């Protein structure tokens, strides 16, 4: 039997009619269309599905959507504001905090939850907090470096500008010019 629930997702109220066995993860992805939150192990070990519910970091693969009635949910889609990346998102790009990217939304949400609670954690505190977010390609030091860059305010203030500059540079490289016919 379907039931009506109301969730606030990234500040926007969502009224949904769902089966009581649906998990928050699947409701976010399939009902609301926010596919940034990923499904990894599906048993609460890998952290790929991490979202913030009422300020607390949880695994959305173990959370029933029906139990989130009236709650405030933050997902990776809610971080960028007015076309500007969240400092953590920017740091992960600048410091190479990801490769394949499937763990990244979870990593960033975990880091955000930590910084919301403790804006100046030590590297060890970051490691402890993020021990439930697994990454199978980058390795953890790049991720740690990315988070610590935000903590120590080491991300570039002119990031957006630099990005455009780099794109222009890449496009001006020889490899992008049409190859001249040699006979």
């Amino acid at each position, binding site marked *: 039997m379907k039931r009506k629930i109301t969730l606030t997702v990234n500040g926007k109220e969502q009224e949904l009619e769902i089966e*009581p066995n649906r*998990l928050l993860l699947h409701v976010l992805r399939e009902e609301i269309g926010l596919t940034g939150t990923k499904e990894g192990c*599906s048993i609460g070990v890998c952290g790929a599905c991490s979202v913030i519910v009422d300020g607390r*970091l949880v695994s959305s693969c173990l*959370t029933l959507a029906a139990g989130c009635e009236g709650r405030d949910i933050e997902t990776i889609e809610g971080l960028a504001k007015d076309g500007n990346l969240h400092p953590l998102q920017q740091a992960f790009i600048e410091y190479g905090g990801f490769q394949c990217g499937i763990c990244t939304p979870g990593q960033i949400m*975990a880091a955000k939850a930590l910084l919301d609670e403790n804006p100046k954690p030590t590297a060890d505190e970051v490691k402890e907090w993020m021990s*439930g*977010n697994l990454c199978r390609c980058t390795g953890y030091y790049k991720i740690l470096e990315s988070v610590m860059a935000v903590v120590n305010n080491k991300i570039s203030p002119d990031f957006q500008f630099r990005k455009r500059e780099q794109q222009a540079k890449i496009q001006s490289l020889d490899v992008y010019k049409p190859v001249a016919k040699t006979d």
Partner: protein
Amino acid sequence: MKRTEPLEIYQPTSVNEACRIIKQSGPGGHFLAGGTDLIIAIKEKGWVPRYVVDLKRIPSLSEILTNSDGSLVLGALTTMREIEISPLIRDRYPFLAQSAAEVGSIQIRHRATIGGNMANATPSADVAPALIALDAKAKISGENSERIVALEKFFVGPGKTLMKPDEILTALIIPPHPATLRGEYIKFSPREMMDLAYVGVAVALAMDERKKVKHVRIALGAVAPIPMRARKAEAIVLDQILSEEIAEQAGGEAAKECSPISDVRSSADYRREMVRVNTKRALLNAASEHWRPTSWVERRDRRY
């Protein structure tokens, strides 16, 4: 993608209502607290409860209270994270906070509840030995009834407790202890984090001015069908000055007392040996000057 089977969820707002639902709906139901065990069981083992009674709408089940007699009441829906960071628990029983901090990831600890963890009766539950070392009692409520049993007696086998199907574990009560009570919880597991214990050892003790042990509890996890007390090991330590020799003897006795099994994680012999070593360490740590748990890095680097 793993999905849960369709199921009916009731969301009662009082303990009596929850018990009535179980009585009326008959067998095949299950209580839901944090869901970190139940939902995995449904996904992994294909086990389908006929219906689920979600307890999270019941107020008053998620509080940490002090009674006038000095006892501490932990509501069954108190999350592991709440126990980990509660100033009251960190001050009085830091090793209990430590044991809660050893559970899963932060994502899990924000949802997993102490009542759910105890009602599931996993032999390797981290918080169980710490609670048993504190002589904790389980408050069990039925429809218009209530009883209180020692937590040690609450467990009857792996995944089994003495509760009837229509009874709910509503709180864990820690009786008053002298201010001198100190303790330690050591989780010995293959990895530093995100793993289950090979062996868990909790120690709570109180000493007089001459460092003689006047009260001691040693509780072991993951080495018997239920979390257990090592009574013979306790007897060795009681009324003694806790020397390395005494701790060594107590460790040996605890290793004899427990009844571990061999499984994917380790052999029974290895577990027994680790009970010996870690009981000794836990006793010495609890009696040492620096007995309060610190960060995981300091714990990891500590020389015993």
